[in-house]
């Protein structure tokens, strides 16, 4: 049962990601990517990471993709038929990357080989506890980063920047 849903969501994620990257129209790309993130949220549910699955839908499929769609429509991108895809030696690099990742994943999982998954559940209270005790310094640093991002967005989006 779990395997069935794994292959369902995993296949959906891969196919929608492929469609994201191959669509001519950026709006279609964004829509396919929302589906891809939703499939990933399903994968997180399979891993008992319920809070992360929720955040994936809320933040990734919701907020970030709406931001992308907003910008795409704001700058009114035409279908980019003039966009020339580069099939260069870089594609070979990508294939090599995949082969290395695949080889590491399949041939040598190390001490984890054949180990059963644990049954820890990503409850919000457990994660919040961890976040506000052991990881409180990175958490505060993150708030600084977000503030910097907000300020940066405001500065960058001004009409004229005086040189």
């Amino acid at each position, binding site marked *: 049962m779990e395997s069935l849903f794994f292959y369902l969501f995993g296949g959906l994620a891969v196919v929608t990601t492929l469609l994201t990257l191959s669509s001519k129209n950026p709006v279609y790309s964004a829509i396919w990517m929302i589906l891809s993130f939703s499939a990933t949220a399903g994968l997180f549910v399979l891993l008992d990471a319920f809070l992360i699955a929720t955040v994936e839908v809320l933040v990734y499929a919701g907020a970030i993709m709406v931001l992308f769609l907003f910008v795409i429509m704001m700058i009114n991108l035409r279908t980019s038929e003039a966009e020339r895809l580069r099939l260069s030696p870089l594609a070979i690099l990508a294939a090599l990357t995949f082969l290395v990742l695949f080889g590491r994943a399949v041939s040598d999982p190390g001490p984890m080989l054949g180990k059963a998954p644990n*049954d820890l559940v990503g409850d919000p209270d457990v994660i919040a506890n961890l976040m506000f005790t052991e990881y409180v310094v990175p958490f505060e640093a993150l708030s600084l980063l977000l503030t910097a991002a907000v300020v940066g967005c405001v500065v960058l989006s001004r009409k004229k920047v005086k040189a």
Partner: protein
Amino acid sequence: MTLAAAQNSVPLEHWLTLSGVLFTLGLCGVMMRRNVILVLMSVEIMLNAANVALVVFNKYLIANAPEGVALDGQVFVFFTIAVAAAEAAVALVIAMALFRRLDTVNVDDVANLRW
């Protein structure tokens, strides 16, 4: 976890392969698409693949602790998501400024700082 449940569960290799496939797709997108918006989306895809790998390792690497609070991998995923959101916001504003000033979103047209 019972033995039957352990045997029914998806092997670690399959999870990692899925994560590798998604990461490689994102990498291909970064290198092959020339639209800056699509390049950004591909970066998000790569970050997302890394998130999957983090949660999978948290699930398979940590033994079944009786206290059951070993969810560090999932906390990392939260940090990744927050950083990805900040990065997307700033990068999209840069793309808009690029479009306003140079009237293009093709990354090949904006190569002044290259070499």
